[in-house]
């Protein structure tokens, strides 16, 4: 569905120091710098996959997404989405995709979202019956009933995001590019949106490429992740494999009936948290079974849970270069 080969995007950016002298100098001479926003990335995403596209700020995620959506022309390399060259922006291609950006909107600002829905129906040639059915589903799922008749400018950020999502999916696109889709939503609505995206993917077989700084989005939706940093691809594979590679540990959370000495805990593993009766230990995956057995026999245990390390910590370590060889060969991808 999505094929990217040695994709590059460079910008020429003007440089200027602050101050009046610098402003006057820039009239005659404007130094420029070449910025490689995307620097030779390659990947393939199959039909129906849900893939997280992660990276620190300025890594090149949104630039890549925009090239896939046809908003930007690549500087080099090739990109194909459902057999189309996105930069040609053929009508059939634009009807196949949707791009939802948390910080931009397509809703008509001065009119109710219902007007945007009607406009999109005409622009995307959505048959009336399908439009009513899809709109009904979206309205119910995203709780839009009281929102669609208010002018967009009078909606809160979270309310606007829900309506944006509805507007973006009315034409039942085959490929969803989602750039921070849950930004500004409350916890309950974030869960609703995630469930909706998963259900949409499963029902229509749509391919989903999601960028998000919210690791809950990634954990809930993306079995596979592509990680990009400084414009380069540093990981492409299953999320659980990434976690194992970057932080090959498990966290054991203990609730104890009485305080335990720190030295007793240190023998079991690395103590990450230690209050009177709550402890978190970090242990290598390979030693998990043995440590759990020791905990069960040696400690005054009330409750025990075993967790993967928080994704936020995994990504932090990955971006900090804490794992020098974290990059995997491009994977076939997991559905």
């Amino acid at each position, binding site marked *: 569905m999505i094929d990217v080969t040695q994709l590059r995007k460079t910008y020429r950016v003007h440089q200027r120091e602050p101050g009046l002298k610098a402003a006057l100098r820039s009239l005659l001479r404007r130094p420029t710098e070449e910025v490689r926003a995307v620097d030779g990335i390659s990947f393939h995403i199959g039909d129906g996959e849900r893939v997280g596209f992660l990276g620190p700020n300025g890594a090149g995620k949104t630039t890549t997404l925009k090239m896939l959506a046809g908003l930007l022309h690549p500087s080099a390399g090739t990109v194909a989405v459902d057999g189309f060259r996105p930069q040609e922006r053929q009508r059939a291609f*634009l009807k196949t995709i949707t791009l939802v950006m948390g910080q*931009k*909107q397509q809703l008509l600002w001065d009119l109710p979202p219902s007007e945007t829905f009607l*406009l999109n129906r005409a*622009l995307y*040639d959505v048959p009336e019956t399908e439009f009513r059915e899809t709109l009904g589903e979206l309205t119910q799922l995203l709780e839009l009933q009281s929102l669609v008749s208010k002018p967009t400018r009078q909606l809160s950020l979270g309310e606007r995001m829900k309506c944006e999502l509805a507007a973006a999916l009315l034409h039942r696109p085959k490929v969803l590019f989602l750039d921070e889709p849950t930004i500004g939503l409350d916890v309950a609505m974030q869960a609703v949106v995630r469930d909706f995206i998963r259900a949409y993917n499963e029902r229509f077989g749509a391919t989903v490429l999601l960028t998000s700084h919210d690791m809950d989005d990634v954990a809930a939706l993306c079995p596979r992740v592509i990680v990009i940093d400084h414009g380069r691809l540093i990981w492409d594979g299953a999320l659980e494999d990434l976690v194992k590679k970057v932080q090959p540990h498990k966290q054991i959370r203990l609730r104890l009936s009485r305080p335990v000495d720190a030295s007793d805990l240190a023998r079991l593993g690395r103590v990450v948290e230690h209050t009177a009766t709550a402890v978190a230990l970090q242990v290598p995956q390979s030693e998990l079974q043995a440590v759990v057995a020791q905990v069960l026999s040696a400690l005054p245990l009330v409750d025990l849970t075993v967790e993967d390390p928080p994704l936020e910590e995994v990504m932090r370590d990955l971006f900090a270069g804490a794992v020098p060889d974290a990059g995997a060969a491009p994977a076939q991808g997991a559905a």
Partner: protein
Amino acid sequence: MRDPRGDTTGALRHALRALPALLHTGFASVLAYRAEILIWMFATNMPLVMLALWSAVARSGPVAGYTPDAFTAYYLATLLVRLLTGCWVVYELTMEIRQGTLAMRLLRPIHPLLAHAAENAAATPVRLLVCTPLIAVFVYTSHRAVTHDWLLWLLVPVAIAGAWLIIFGVMAIVGTLALFVESAMGLFQLWLGLSGVLSGYLVPLDLFPARVRDLANVLPFRFTLSYPVELMLGRLDRAHALQLLGAQWAYVALFFAGTMLLWRKGMQRFGAFGG
């Protein structure tokens, strides 16, 4: 890989199908800002100022054949055409390019300029409604000065449409230049300045020296205002009127082609900045 040549006929048919919805939302947006459009229309009062000026001058004798009544007819017709051909795409397009919000238009399967054209054109019914008192005054004061040739009156709406399309085309070109330079609004101000003089907005082209008049007669500015006014006031015979109609729509085609070419080049440079 899909055939990149595309389907021009299909695109045109799609655009025609989508046009009613685009006009509907454009009209609805204009109604949301009805106070602003009224203020803009009342602020377009330069022809009335020039009318007062030239009427005073003509009281002591006609100026190049223009009596006070002739000036009244001329400037009321000018005001009418100016109000009906108003357009604001250059401001919107420049802002959208600078802020990156053009991206959202580019994601839709309709050319952004077509969408802009529909939104701008959708204001016409409101403009017409607001112009109704002006039309009544024009008919009352100048019914003797206007043409009684039905063919010329048939050409008037076509000429006004052509005028609007040229203005839109120029604005679209200047707006698209924002893809190439930091800001092209200076260029638009230059166009406005030249247009004020060479379109007949400030002074009837008849009043210019011969050389200036000959130049103004062939430049596109005339076709954005003076030409429809000349039709309404019967200052052209049929043959000349039709000839000039051809010239006007040749300019429409020229600006359309220029806009499309510039847009295609500009899209390769679009940075979609702003997140």
